[in-house]
């Protein structure tokens, strides 16, 4: 059929257009890659990328060999093609060649649609199988039915002959890919965690949505070639096709975005992406045959169809990782049907009526369902039985990058998260926790720390805000209180002055009188049996006057002189005689009776007898002075002339007003505690009435008995004349507590005795409450600091003795954190049996960021040390990694050592750290003061140096941080290197614990109670064996043949015999060597080439070890599953048994990939038997 076509001349412009379109369609491969990689998690990104690339290669080759012929070769009854297989292209066949090029891109697209849907759990091999199935069978077969003859403008496929129209492949390409994806999804199931049993579906968010969006846009661009090129000529129809394509894609995008936003409340990126793609898929079948409004409608509905289909998938718990089924299958079906609904008859050119056309479109859709979905499902169900399509759960957990392609990115991922966290300060970020790796453990720890920090952070923030608020309001309160207090003080001073000047300057007449003789006389009367004094006075006329005559006037003020018209005080001092009139007898009787009944204050209106004989009316008020309640030796009498009543009332008002204050309690009380006066504010504040308070001890009403009142009073009387300020707890009448700040000022008599106390108080309850809250908040912050410190401490080894079963050395260290979390650390670990790595470091900063930096540093050192025995090289690599992403410009000083425990050789490097000391067994002190490079984390690309030194038995290494030498005494002197050196020279060392304690105690002494300003770290190691304990070593080099195995076993057996190794060690080691070599010889070199295997045998006092090293393909024999050792003979396989034996029988086994070689080391411990050997 194509042979006929050769003769036709195709215009070069058409060739150029279709080739250009091919390139655009090729671009869709890129688009799919970016889209899918962006919508999946980064742990699978490599797998997604490889799939998208590999499937293109596979589909191209298969399509060339087979698919193209099947699809476009000469038809056999409209069912399949019969020629054009593995066709060779030539200039003479320009059109078929270009046509092939275009079609092969289509085939690639159909295949790659699948990859996104099944991402994150499908085995790579299974995907390749599916790629072969689609490119070699389902796609070309269905394509034949719809498109055969396309290249020569004929419709020879059986579907096309019935009038099925699918312009650029809504069904042929997109639905075929979509049906395949759906079939596979049903078999492999959802990704772990997508549909939890006990909760709503969990959205698995893509790793890089901008990249996904870029991919979608690339697809959009590629689609112009996909649809545009399907015209197969550069005619006038191309413009319409392209415009319809752009229109429908945009309509799908906008409508899906809008409908999605309406449904979930916000525009979501996947709605935008998949809506656009849905619109594009829908228009693909009919871009040539509809007008613009129809194109808009088809695209818009396509977008909605995608949303609906996504919802359905979720409902049926089908997990399509990128939404390929909704986009390519659902929108593809819609587009195919839309062709029947909207297609213009003359452009469709099928000669069918509307319903007939719709019917045949439906037939096409149904055919695809049966021939692609059903067939694929059947094949996949069977194939899945033979070899599961899905990766094991652990592989899914780890990510397909690692499990399928051996790529590892966890350190990178971890750093990315930490970096983002440092930049954004977003504590909600979590590092990916990849199980079974050290970085994973660190990440888990890091997350745990972040968890604590985040929880605490929000609380802390709250507390912080609260605190600030409190401090602010407290400050203003205090300021107010101070203002109040000084106002009150002024007022009080005024009060004191008033009391003092009452006498002289008062406008009121005041008398100071002595009633002591009156008191005695009254007592005598009462003792004589009189119970009712008033009646007694009535019965004995003149008696009251007689008693009243006993009153002595001590002093009077100017107002008194004025009132009575006296010239001098002398006229009124002494007896009252001249001032009494006819009514005085009854007035005195009343007054004396009242005082005798215990009243301290008596007030009455009485007749005023002036010296010139005039009379008037006065209010006489008598008060027994504080301190004179018993003796009545001092009594104040005020006389207010009320002859002119109005004037009198005014004067009284002034006196009262002076005692009132709006917001200050003013109280006057007597030395024995009785309240004489309290202003209205005070009474209101405490909720008592004047009657309840006045005349009673304050502790009966508003003073709490144990509120600090007694101490206050004691302080007042201990120092007469001094004011006392205090805060005491008082109570309201309802029992609620109220805190009052008092200023208590005593009033003294001439002998400096306190006669009264004026207390001015301010309500500080609210301030006090706030102070308590501030205190509680401070305690909380203190606690948070402790949490962070605990985390720091959890990052350094704390179990001592650290290596109880190792006799070659002993190690001890302490890390005493300063009050804030600092950045010190130490670490030590065995790299392998013979190498100990130990290190001390100090991060330049403090607080949580320093602790994080420390954690990273420690991790880097440890991970590099696992495969590297050179401190210089470890430091160089760690420094480079620290420098990357070090936004905060922190750095760390590190001293790093690796000690060969067999020989005592210590290799070390110093990155700006305090030089450690070695105290030799001879008592000499060596300072390791070589510098090997700058502090780590500051400058990248530095090559660090290293030095070596040989330790002998009894040598001590002492390492420390500057918290030791810079420890400060109370008068701020540093401890210093000199002091440390002297200490180490002068003191004997007999244990690392003792050495560390020696240094630490010296610092504590030096600090002498001063607060520790920096973390203190001290590490000490004692090297114990100086003799080379490596007794013998044998190296065997053998070819990778079974004969070689025999010879190696022979040599080892002889060597063991010479060394006198007893059978129970020799036999298992021989067995282990046999099995290990067997493995290497059989599996390490699949190409059968000749290689050398090296075996090194070490015998020490305690251990018989062999290392087998080969340069074959990387393989960890200990990573295999264990065999079932309980099966019966018939079921029993032998695979993995040798390794199982090695694992079980050996005391040590490990695998390393070192310098491009597999190194497997196993060892068996020698016990008591070996001692005999040594002594023999």
């Amino acid at each position, binding site marked *: 059929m194509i042979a006929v076509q050769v003769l036709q001349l195709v215009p070069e412009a058409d060739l150029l257009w279709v080739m250009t379109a091919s390139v655009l369609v090729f671009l869709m491969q890129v688009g799919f890659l970016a889209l899918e990689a962006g919508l999946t998690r980064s742990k699978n990104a490599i797998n997604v990328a490889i799939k998208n690339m590999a499937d293109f290669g596979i589909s191209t080759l298969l399509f060339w060999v087979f698919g193209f012929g099947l699809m476009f070769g000469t038809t056999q009854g409209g069912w399949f093609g019969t020629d054009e297989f593995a066709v060779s292209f030539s200039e003479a066949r320009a059109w078929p060649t270009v046509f092939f090029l275009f079609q092969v891109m289509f085939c690639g697209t159909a295949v790659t649609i699948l990859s996104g849907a099944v991402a994150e759990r499908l085995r790579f091999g299974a995907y390749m199988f599916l790629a072969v199935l689609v490119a070699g069978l389902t796609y070309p077969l269905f394509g034949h039915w719809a498109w055969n003859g396309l290249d020569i403008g004929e419709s020879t496929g059986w579907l096309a002959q019935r009038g099925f129209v699918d312009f650029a492949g809504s069904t042929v390409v997109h639905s075929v890919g979509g049906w395949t994806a759906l079939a596979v999804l049903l078999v492999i199931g959802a990704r772990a965690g997508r549909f939890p049993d006990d909760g709503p579906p969990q959205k698995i968010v893509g790793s890089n949505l901008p990249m996904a969006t870029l991919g979608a846009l690339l697809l959009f661009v590629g689609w112009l070639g996909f649809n545009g090129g399907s015209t197969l000529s550069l005619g006038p129809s191309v413009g319409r096709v392209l415009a319809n394509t752009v229109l429908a894609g945009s309509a799908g995008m906008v409508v899906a975005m809008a409908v999605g936003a309406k449904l979930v409340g916000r525009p979501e990126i996947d709605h935008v992406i998949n809506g656009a793609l849905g619109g594009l898929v829908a228009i693909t079948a009919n871009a040539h045959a509809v007008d613009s409004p129809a194109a808009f409608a088809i695209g818009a509905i396509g977008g909605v169809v995608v949303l609906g289909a996504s919802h359905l998938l979720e409902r049926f718990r089908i997990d399509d990782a990128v939404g390929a089924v909704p986009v390519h299958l659902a929108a593809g079906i819609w587009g195919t049907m839309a062709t029947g609904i909207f297609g213009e008859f003359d452009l469709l050119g099928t000669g069918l009526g509307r319903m007939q056309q719709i019917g045949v479109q439906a037939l096409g859709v149904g055919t695809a369902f049966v021939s692609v979905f059903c067939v694929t499902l059947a094949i996949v169900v069977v194939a899945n039985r033979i070899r599961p399509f899905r990766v094991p759960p652990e592989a899914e957990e780890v990510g397909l990058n690692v499990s399928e392609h051996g790529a590892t990115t966890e350190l990178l991922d971890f750093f990315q998260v930490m970096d983002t966290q440092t930049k954004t300060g977003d504590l909600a970020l979590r590092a990916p926790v990849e199980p079974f790796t050290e970085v994973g453990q660190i990440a888990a720890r890091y997350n745990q720390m972040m968890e604590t920090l985040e929880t605490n952070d929000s609380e802390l923030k709250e507390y912080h805000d609260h605190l600030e608020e409190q401090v602010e309001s407290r400050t203003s309160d205090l300021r107010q209180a101070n203002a109040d207090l000084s106002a009150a003080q002024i007022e009080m001073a005024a009060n004191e002055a008033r009391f003092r000047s009452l006498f002289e300057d008062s406008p009121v007449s005041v008398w100071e009188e002595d009633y002591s003789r009156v008191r005695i006389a009254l007592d005598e009367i009462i003792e004589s049996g009189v119970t009712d004094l008033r009646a007694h006075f009535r019965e004995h006329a003149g008696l009251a006057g007689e008693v009243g005559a006993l009153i002595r006037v001590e002093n009077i003020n100017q107002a008194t002189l004025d009132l009575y018209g006296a010239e001098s005080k002398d006229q009124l001092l002494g007896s009252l005689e001249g001032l009494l009139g006819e009514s005085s007898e009854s007035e005195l009787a009343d007054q004396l009776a009242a005082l005798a009944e215990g009243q301290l204050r008596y007030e009455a209106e009485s007749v005023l007898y002036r010296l010139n004989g005039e009379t008037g009316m006065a209010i006489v008020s008598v008060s027994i002075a504080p301190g004179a309640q018993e003796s009545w030796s001092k009594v104040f009498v005020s006389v207010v002339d009320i002859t002119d009543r109005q004037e009198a009332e005014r004067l009284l008002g002034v006196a009262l007003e002076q005692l009132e204050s709006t917001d200050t309690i003013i109280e006057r009380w007597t030395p024995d505690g009785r309240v004489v006066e309290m202003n209205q504010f005070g009474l209101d504040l405490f909720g008592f009435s004047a009657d309840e308070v006045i005349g009673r001890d304050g502790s009966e009403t508003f003073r709490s008995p144990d509120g600090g009142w007694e101490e206050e009073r004691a302080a007042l009387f201990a120092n007469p004349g001094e004011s006392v300020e205090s805060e005491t707890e008082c109570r309201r009448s309802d029992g609620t507590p109220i805190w009052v700040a008092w200023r208590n000022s005593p009033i003294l008599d001439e002998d400096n005795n306190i006669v009264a106390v004026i207390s001015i108080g301010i309500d500080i309850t609210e301030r006090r409450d706030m102070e308590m809250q501030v205190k509680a908040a401070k305690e909380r912050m203190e606690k948070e600091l402790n949490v962070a410190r605990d985390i720091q401490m959890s990052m350094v080894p704390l179990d001592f003795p650290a290596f109880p079963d190792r006799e070659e050395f002993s190690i001890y260290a302490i890390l005493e954190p300063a009050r804030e979390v600092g950045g010190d650390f130490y670490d030590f670990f065995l790299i392998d049996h013979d190498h100990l790595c130990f290190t001390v470091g100090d991060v330049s900063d403090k607080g949580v960021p320093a602790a994080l930096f420390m954690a990273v540093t420690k991790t880097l050192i440890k991970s590099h040390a696992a495969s590297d025995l050179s401190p210089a090289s470890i430091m160089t690599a760690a420094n480079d990694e620290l420098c990357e992403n070090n936004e905060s410009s922190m750095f760390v000083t590190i001293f790093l050592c690796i000690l060969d425990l067999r020989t005592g050789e210590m290799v070390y490097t110093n990155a700006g750290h305090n030089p450690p000391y070695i105290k030799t067994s001879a008592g000499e002190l060596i300072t390791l003061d070589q510098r090997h490079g700058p502090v780590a984390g500051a400058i990248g690309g530095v090559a660090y140096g290293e030095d070596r030194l040989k330790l002998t038995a009894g040598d001590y290494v002492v390492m420390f941080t500057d918290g030791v030498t810079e420890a400060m005494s109370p008068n701020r002197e540093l401890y210093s290197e000199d002091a440390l050196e002297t200490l180490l020279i002068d003191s004997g060392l007999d244990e690392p614990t003792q050495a560390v304690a020696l240094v630490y105690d010296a610092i504590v002494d030096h600090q002498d109670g001063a607060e520790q300003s920096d973390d203190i770290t001290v590490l000490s190691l004692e090297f114990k064996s100086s003799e080379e304990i490596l007794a013998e070593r044998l190296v065997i080099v053998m070819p990778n043949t*079974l004969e070689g*195995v*025999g010879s190696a*076993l022979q040599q080892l057996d002889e060597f063991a015999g010479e060394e006198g190794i007893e*059978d*129970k060690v020799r*036999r*298992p080691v*021989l*067995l282990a060597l*046999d*099995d290990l*070599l*067997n493995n290497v010889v059989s599996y390490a070199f699949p190409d059968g080439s000749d290689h050398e295997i090296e075996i090194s045998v070490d015998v020490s006092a305690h251990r018989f070890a062999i290392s087998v090293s080969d340069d074959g393909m990387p393989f960890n024999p200990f990573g295999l599953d264990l065999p*079932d*050792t*309980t*099966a*019966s*003979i*018939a079921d*029993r396989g*032998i695979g993995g*048994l*040798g390794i*199982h*034996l090695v694992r*079980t*029988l050996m005391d040590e086994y490990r695998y390393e990939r070192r310098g491009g070689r597999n190194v497997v080391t196993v060892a068996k411990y020698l016990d008591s038997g070996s001692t005999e050997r040594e002594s023999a």
Partner: protein
Amino acid sequence: MNITDEKSGDVVIARFEGSLDTRTASDAMSHLDALVEGGSSQIVVDFTSTDFVSSAGLRVLLATAKKLGATGWLRLFGLNPSVQEVFDVSGFSTIFSIFDDEASALSA
């Protein structure tokens, strides 16, 4: 490895000398194969002089046991502690009949 056979009625006693490992497994296999093909269905292996047995050796014994199937049997005795441990660890002591000495192996 040296293997010497001894007949005791219908039973063949194969005495293994040396160690049963990668070096010797194929010889041992062909020796036992020859016995089975020659009609011996009751075989006792004497391990008294066997130093150690590796997984290659276990493979030989397993293959022989499978060949004998239900119609015959394979019995073992004289395992030194190291060999016994290998049988225990691999689970082979539960699927083979192991005896302390020749007499009990023959009389069982």
